[in-house]
């Protein structure tokens, strides 16, 4: 018998009794309408032998132990997934099983906990970005940007999207998949010194351009010169759509301050572990005028029969279960638990904590950048203001360097040469508050003399 039998409460006697009650002679009879040709018999399915809980725990533990995780070795990878400290309180909040074993809060009266937490999350995202509207979250930063591009095309009834090459290459690949299948065009704005070449905008923007997509700080960790970007986009009737690092917003100008129309981003760093790249948290905020074009779930405030404040899923006429093929998106779920973590995280940090945290990232990354680029053969790839990531030209192949660093018990940065061959050997390092001076110095020590 299977190791998971304790998940199945029916006893043999009960099965017999229930089969009798429905007039079936055997459990097999319950599947009688399946064509004989496709029916599997006991033993047909070839899966590994079942494990008891004790064995499963040991097996999963052994698989996990084959990995080197960022608690074992300091990790200098970023590129959209970040090693930020997670206060213990966050996992205790998300560990409440009334939250995590529930589904989408369709029955509002017994889902006020989740609904209110999402309403609070939407408010927090708007306060961070300066926008007026936000949804309950999307799958990740990449799909949030793609959904924004699709929404921009729908709003403007135009068929072309401009994206800077300084946007995360994985995100651009997702954009390409989402747009191509709908016959929407994606054009890339070239780089100058690691940042968007804004001098090309006027010639690239035209009457069919729906949106200008930028990342802040960009993929190389550089601050883009956003002043004027919205002006140019708006003059041509296009929307300015951003992908931002939420933690950077504690320090940097908020997207509302440079007049963005839609703000998306990856919220994993807000209290969620990297988890090998998922589950992540896509956030999506916009100007009030775009409210009814926002994809995904949205929670709104209302009152009950007695006038008490309560929360419900709202504006559902945008959605697939009402509009079917005329829905504005096929999104049905969100990443509610990750959004809950983000809200608890932001509340735990508070304004002072989040600012301190962002300053720690800024200072530590600057320290690491200065040390690394002082080494023979390692040069800062681009000038400009950085946040927590920076690109470095290397004296040799990035993949080889990472193997060398692993030998020194360090998980290095991202080898970006495959994404930007024109740079030659180059690496994107990320330094967050979780890296100690000792660990940064160890990285510098391991780089020194390597070629």
């Amino acid at each position, binding site marked *: 018998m299977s190791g998971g039998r304790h998940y199945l409460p029916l006893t043999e006697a009960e099965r017999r009794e229930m089969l009798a009650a429905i007039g079936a002679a055997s459990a097999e009879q319950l599947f009688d309408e399946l064509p004989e040709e496709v029916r599997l018999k006991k033993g047909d399915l070839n899966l590994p032998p079942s494990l008891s809980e004790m064995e499963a725990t040991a097996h999963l533990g052994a698989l996990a132990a084959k990995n080197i995780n960022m608690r074992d070795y300091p990790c200098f990878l970023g590129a959209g997934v970040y090693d930020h400290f997670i206060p213990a309180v966050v996992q205790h909040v998300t560990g409440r099983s009334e939250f995590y074993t529930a589904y989408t809060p369709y029955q509002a009266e017994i889902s006020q906990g989740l609904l209110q937490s999402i309403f609070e999350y939407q408010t927090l995202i708007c306060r961070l970005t300066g926008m007026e509207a936000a949804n309950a979250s999307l799958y990740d930063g990449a799909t949030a940007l793609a959904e924004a591009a699709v929404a921009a095309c729908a709003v403007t009834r135009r068929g072309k999207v401009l994206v800077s090459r300084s946007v995360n290459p994985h995100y651009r690949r997702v954009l390409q998949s989402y747009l191509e299948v709908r016959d929407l065009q994606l054009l890339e704005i070239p780089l100058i010194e690691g940042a968007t070449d804004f001098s090309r905008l006027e010639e690239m923007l035209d009457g069919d351009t729906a949106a200008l997509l930028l990342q802040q700080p960009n993929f190389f960790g550089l601050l883009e010169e956003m002043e004027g970007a919205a002006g140019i986009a708006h003059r041509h009737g296009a929307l300015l759509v951003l992908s931002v690092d939420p933690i950077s917003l504690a320090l940097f100008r908020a997207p509302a301050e440079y007049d963005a129309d839609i703000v998306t981003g990856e919220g994993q760093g807000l209290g969620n572990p990297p988890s090998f790249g998922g589950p992540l948290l896509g956030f999506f905020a916009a100007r009030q005028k775009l409210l009814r074009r926002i994809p995904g779930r949205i929670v709104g405030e209302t*009152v009950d029969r007695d006038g008490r404040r309560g929360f419900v899923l709202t504006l559902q006429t945008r959605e697939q279960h009402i509009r079917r093929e005329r829905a504005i998106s096929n999104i049905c779920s969100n990443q509610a638990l990750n959004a809950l973590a983000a809200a608890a995280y932001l509340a735990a940090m508070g304004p002072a904590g989040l600012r301190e945290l962002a300053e720690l990232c800024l200072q530590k990354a600057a320290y690491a950048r200065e040390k690394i680029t002082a080494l023979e053969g390692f040069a800062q790839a681009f000038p400009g203001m950085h946040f927590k990531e920076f690109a470095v030209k290397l004296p040799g192949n990035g993949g080889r360097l990472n193997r060398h660093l692993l030998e020194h018990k360090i998980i290095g940065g991202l080898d970006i040469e495959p994404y930007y061959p024109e740079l030659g050997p180059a690496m994107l390092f990320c330094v967050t508050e979780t890296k100690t001076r000792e660990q940064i110095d160890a990285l510098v020590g391991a780089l020194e003399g390597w070629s």
Partner: protein
Amino acid sequence: MRKEQALLFELGAPGRRGCSLPQPDIPVKPLDELLPAKLRRGIPLALPELSEGELVRHYTALSTRNHGVDSGFYPLGSCTMKYNPKVNEEAARLPGFAFLHPCQPAESVQGAMELLYRTEACLAEITGMKRVTFQPAAGAHGELTGMMLIHAYHKSRNDQRKRVLIPDSAHGTNPASAAMAGYEIKEIPSDGRGLVDLKALKELLDDDVAALMLTNPNTLGLFEEDILEIAAAVHEVGGLLYYDGANLNAIMGHARPGDMGFDVVHLNLHKTFATPHGGGGPGSGPVGVKEHLVPFLPVPLVERGEKGYYWKDDLPLSIGRVHGFNGNFGVVVKAYTYIMMMGAEGLRQAAADAVLNANYLMERLKKSYALPYDRRCKHEFVLSARKQKKKGVSAGDIAKALLDYGFHPPTVYFPLIVEEALMVEPTETESKETLDRFAEVMEEIARLAEEDPERVTSAPHTTPVGRLDEVRAARNPRIIWDGDEGSE
């Protein structure tokens, strides 16, 4: 006593905080040097200020205002709200999984890649597919990915097709996903049996049909017994068959979509494979394909070579990426743990019990509620409250009345082809006592609908809030807190 729960923004006091950070251990530069004032945030950062204890009380209070599978019976049709084993949670939280970066060198994440490889093999075997991608983060995301694959397949054959066929009983995500992929949708009617109308389908089939999207068993909980004929007809005109795996729990271990002729399937790991729904996510919607669609899968795929596992990125016909990284890996860890514990026999038993539980409840409830399609169901069945409606009691009222008895209601008003629909999916992890108690309560509500309908239409009476005004929420949207009390 019903009380409002204060919002985060109404709690705390300026200067409080809920966590501490270390002092800088590096020489600190003047901020102006790293970030000139003109680039700094100019608008206030209005986040809550609470102590850690206040924060915990807030969320604990919220959690008590929420119903999950751990709180009680959750027969929400088509959502497979089965019990979520605790060991799965522990597995996903292991630092060796939770604290991996997706861009780490392959040699440092061999265990995670092995887990993906093994889970892929299990899911391919369970569905009868060749390969599986884990990038889709949810069922609807899987559907969109599947449609992109189908689009790429036809395009590679210089065969641009415009249309996707979808039964009128299908989940709303099906037409929405196909439309997201640029297809026009044609709806196929259901016949008197509640199954695809074969004649109508055949009339709609031509060489402009890219695919038929089918849920089997369908959303009425009925197995599409003509599936082999359907598959042959779709393939004959060059179309592909897409399997919406939302209802795989009914047949897993008893039949495979691949053997029925499906070319592409998506699974909902958060339904069939017991991973928690997370309050609406994260789920996971892996997509499996037959051999002829493998070249179009999203990149990268995990491969096994002589020196271990590696990422295969060179699929020239690939649709690209549909997720920034590896999909919801943490959810895959939970599903793998579940599959390893259940084994083939356990999965087969789970499906059999799910079907038994559904038929047992259906047999009893059809005495008090109308059952429009009275035939052997699979994992779920759809009642109609049309009898009760005559007394002024709607399916929605019955749902609200159930709340007072501690049950999450069934899915209501879906599928659209059943008037006053109540879609019940008990799952295999519920005991006979729970089913009996639920049946008693449903019978009690049916009796009240006859004798004292107002009791039902005014429900719920015991929940933290009463019925909420959804019209007001939509008409005058307040989707963020802006500081005032909200009373006009």
